[in-house]
């Protein structure tokens, strides 16, 4: 990595942590608190434009022209390439069972470079990234951000994403770095093709930006905080529902 990129990387991390500092000290930020809403809405419009005019048409052609088996192979490979992040972060989060399962699956599927899932999806691995590691370290979620090309994130998750990419780059050789660059657009097309119905549905809603924000925050919190968070959320909702039923 050149000095210029190292400097940029450090700047991004610092900026993300500074933005994190804007939030309250509690881990979760209220969904209604969106200090960058105006800017986020502009970025959302930009992302939507790119999606509707470039990504979605390519993704539709990809679904039409590429056979399901090849698409599933590509999906498997992209997932496999991402597994080292899960291994590292599961270790950092002391989830040893997940570390062992992810390592075993990574080695097994490595025989086919990840293009074929040799255990046929029987081993369920919880995806872990630096965003979730930071959450376990009690780093505040920070305000919601809409990032150009990357989509919805919280400042903590944006920091995590940068660290994840840095991680892969450090682990891999230059040739794999080049491969990663080619994989970014494939990854975007693959994800878009898998979520086409959901995304098209979101665009039809009354306020697509709010829908994306609430879907992202609910989903991300479920992933990170799992049972404890869900139970807490359900208790609050139950109380609200019972009050309304009276």
């Amino acid at each position, binding site marked *: 990595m050149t000095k210029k990129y190292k400097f940029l990387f450090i700047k991004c991390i610092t900026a993300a942590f500074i933005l994190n500092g804007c939030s309250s000290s509690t881990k979760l930020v209220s969904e209604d608190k969106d200090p960058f809403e105006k800017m986020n809405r502009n970025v959302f419009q930009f992302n939507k434009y790119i999606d509707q005019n470039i990504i979605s048409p390519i993704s539709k052609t990809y679904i039409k022209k590429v056979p*399901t088996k090849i698409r599933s192979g590509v999906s498997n490979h992209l997932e496999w390439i991402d597994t080292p992040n899960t291994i590292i972060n599961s270790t950092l989060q002391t989830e040893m069972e997940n570390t062992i399962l992810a390592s075993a699956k990574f080695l097994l599927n490595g025989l086919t470079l990840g293009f074929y899932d040799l255990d046929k999806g029987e081993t369920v691995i919880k995806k872990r990234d630096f965003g979730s590691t930071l959450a376990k370290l009690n780093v505040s979620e920070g305000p919601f951000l809409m990032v150009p090309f990357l989509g919805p994130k919280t400042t903590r998750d944006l920091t995590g994403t940068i660290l994840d990419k840095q991680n892969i780059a450090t682990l891999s050789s230059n040739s794999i770095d080049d491969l990663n660059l080619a994989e970014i657009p494939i990854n975007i097309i693959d994800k878009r093709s898998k979520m086409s119905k959901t995304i098209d549905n979101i665009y039809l809603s009354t306020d697509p930006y709010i829908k994306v924000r609430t879907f992202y925050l609910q989903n991300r919190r479920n992933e990170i905080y799992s049972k404890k968070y869900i139970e807490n959320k359900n208790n609050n909702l139950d109380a609200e529902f019972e009050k309304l039923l009276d």
Partner: protein
Amino acid sequence: MSKFLNYTFLIFLIFNVNIAKSFSDNLKMGEATIQQMIIEAQKHAINTIKLEANERSKKIALLIKKYINLDFMSKATTGTFWKKASETQREKYKTALLKQIVLTIEEHLNTLATLSYKPTKSERRGKKLIYVRGLIEDPNKKKPDVNLLWKLAANKNGSFLILDLEIEGISLVSSQKAETVSILRKNRGNFDILLNKMTREK
């Protein structure tokens, strides 16, 4: 004294057995409601495939109305703004909300016909609520399983109606509420603006 204690114990036992029985009956009723709705939706998807879009939507709306508590959902998705709405605005909002639910279900109805539903666990929550959990599975294992959580409560007639559905932990009522309340807040609680936005053709 011992007789009194025996009677007290007996009454306590009968009371508790009855409560436990009623709890388990309620859970069974809740599960049956969801099972019945899934069967009807799957039948419906197959039977209405050749109908025109409008006709199909009308039939789906009737089916949904039978199983959801639309009054509750309308109140829950508008928060404190519900009290400020007039009777006409409330009725219009209910119609618009139902239309949105129908649109969402229509998108997935054909897919639902090819998948299978498996109930997993039910539990009683608080005084009135019941959680029914289930799994949508693809028999060919080409699609990942989807976890569902239905939240139900009995109405005045004693039959169970759906209050909310969580798909993979994402609550439909919470998502709709975030959207509705944001629009209402920005427009100082003006329901007409919200209704215009909801009914506008996209």
